[in-house]
């Protein structure tokens, strides 16, 4: 890694965006009209959750590698 671990900005972006999407998905989970376009699936909750998890994993790897140096 030059001079910044690339996992940090990617993990950070995915964690923030994933949390936003999942939070909005939770808030609107009782409003099926919001998800009419996505075949009734609460994609914000599921996909936002997946992004949040991916972001946290990347941040965890970056943190462990940073601590090991």
């Amino acid at each position, binding site marked *: 890694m030059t001079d910044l671990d690339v996992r940090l900005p990617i993990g950070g972006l995915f964690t923030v965006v994933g949390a936003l999407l999942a939070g909005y998905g939770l808030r609107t989970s009782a409003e099926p009209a919001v998800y009419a376009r996505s*075949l009734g699936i609460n994609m914000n909750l599921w996909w936002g959750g997946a992004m949040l998890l991916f972001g946290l994993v990347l941040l965890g790897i970056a943190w462990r590698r940073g601590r090991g140096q």
Partner: protein
Amino acid sequence: MPHAAVLTWLDYAIIGIYFVFVLGVGVALRRSMRTSTDFFLSGRSVPAWITGLAFVSANLGAQEVIGMGASGAKYGIATSHFYWVGAIPAMVFVGLFMMPFYYGSRARSVPEYLKLRFDEKTRALNAVSFAVMTVFSSGVSMYAMGKLFNLLLGWSFDGSMLLAAAIVLAYTFLGGLTSAIYNEVLQFFLIVFGFLPLAFLGLRDVGGWDGLRARLAGLATANGFPAGAYTHAWTYMDHASRNPVGVEWFGLLMGLGFVLSFGYWCTDFLVVQRAMAADSMSAARRTPLIGAFPKMLFPFLVILPGMIAVAATPDRSASPVPPAEASAGALAGMGQGIVPVKRDVAGHLERDTRGHPIVDYDLATPAMLLHYFPTGLLGLGLTALLASFMSGMAGNVTAFNTVWTYDLYQSYIRPGASDRHYLNMGRVATVAGIALSLAAAYVAASYNNIMEVLQLVFAFVNAPLFATFALGMFWRRATGHGAFTGLAAGILGAAVHHGLSLPAGAAAGFKGGYLGVVTTYPSELAQTFWTAVAAWTTCFVVTIAVSLGTRPRPAGELTGLVWSLTPRPREGALPLLERPAVLAVIVLAATLTLNLIFF
């Protein structure tokens, strides 16, 4: 025309957060840019997995995301030939056989390799044509973005273009190539996460792969093709009239699989620059091989949504539109599936020579986003779309500033200046590259035909390139005079072949035939592929003929530049999965498997 989407605070927040992070990368890296090597080549210190993802992400611009979605809607799964035939074999070749020369010669750019191997005039021809092409490619990408976001969201054409250009300028100006590469990796993941739900929701809606196959079978027969023409990549390639691409297998393999793909992936500095930034010879060789893994799966991300778009039902509460009616719908000006028809500025239908409305396949992927994504996810999808435009733009600008500074400015205008001077010139070239790209975008907006002519000229310039590089690297007798004359003859050969041929149903003009019509091809793609073959063959033959009549360079000057005089890289000590040859075998086996599955 799709209805302009209404975005909420959440959609705008996601776009805003993305902008903050890409700018943050540039700011975080600005102190690392101490020398010109840091700025233009990332100090040759980037690990292979990052350069590998950047290698494919730099190419993941509008042409790929929007263009391949459009081709998926138009040609079906045969569009995957642009990946499984037209990219992967060339990526394996450049990694295994060409990277030792690019990286090992310590050349700072592809034109500089040509100077080391051949001579100054061959480098100048390649550097000037490449610099002009990158600026125009970036401009066309900006123009497409401004037009698309104006259509989809009602955003100002000027505003959206200037905002994206300003952000790309900021992070490439501050952090140089490293910033572009890091953001390309970020954009890669964003594009994957932004478009994957599209394939999932679309497939689920049309009844899975079997449902899609059934719907497209009807569409194929309605268009005069065998039932499986849209869902089989090879079965109907025996004759040009039996597949929607309009090309037979030999033209496909020679034109796309050999000349065009090797000409792009093996010689284009835009992608090779990413490998040159790697931290070792082994990492440079693995760069295109690592990139090949996601590249071979991209058809499911960008082509599949296009295929679904022509099969999906506009009103989901209704039953699927029978295929014959889908074609009739297109004729009546209703579009095909959820893909709208083209309209002019006044909103009138655009019609072809037979009076039929033209389906606007370029809107296949955007129409899918608006059709399937709810608030929130729509913001993510649009951010992924923006990311694809911006990564393509940044790739072009970083390649332009390197070629301008090293191959033109340092070589011909101001040789012998300090490294600090060239670092500053790189930053000036970054600003100039963005400004020229914007100018090119406005040219594209004002004079559509000018861009058609320019893209045609670029195709002529690119087609013979691989012959020059192949002879330079694998035939030590090739000379500078041979290379330059061969390249010029190849470009001329392409122009003559194009001028003497026409695709079926086209009138003489931009489409060819301006020198008289000697032959007619079944489709534009067939004409493009055979024009490339003509250019490559001309360049190959002329380079050999002129080289045999001119004095070659002494063997001592060619060490590290040609195959027979370069020690083979020793990689026996590397772990098995880090050896380029092992990775290459896995990549080729996986690609062959995909071809067989969708045969």
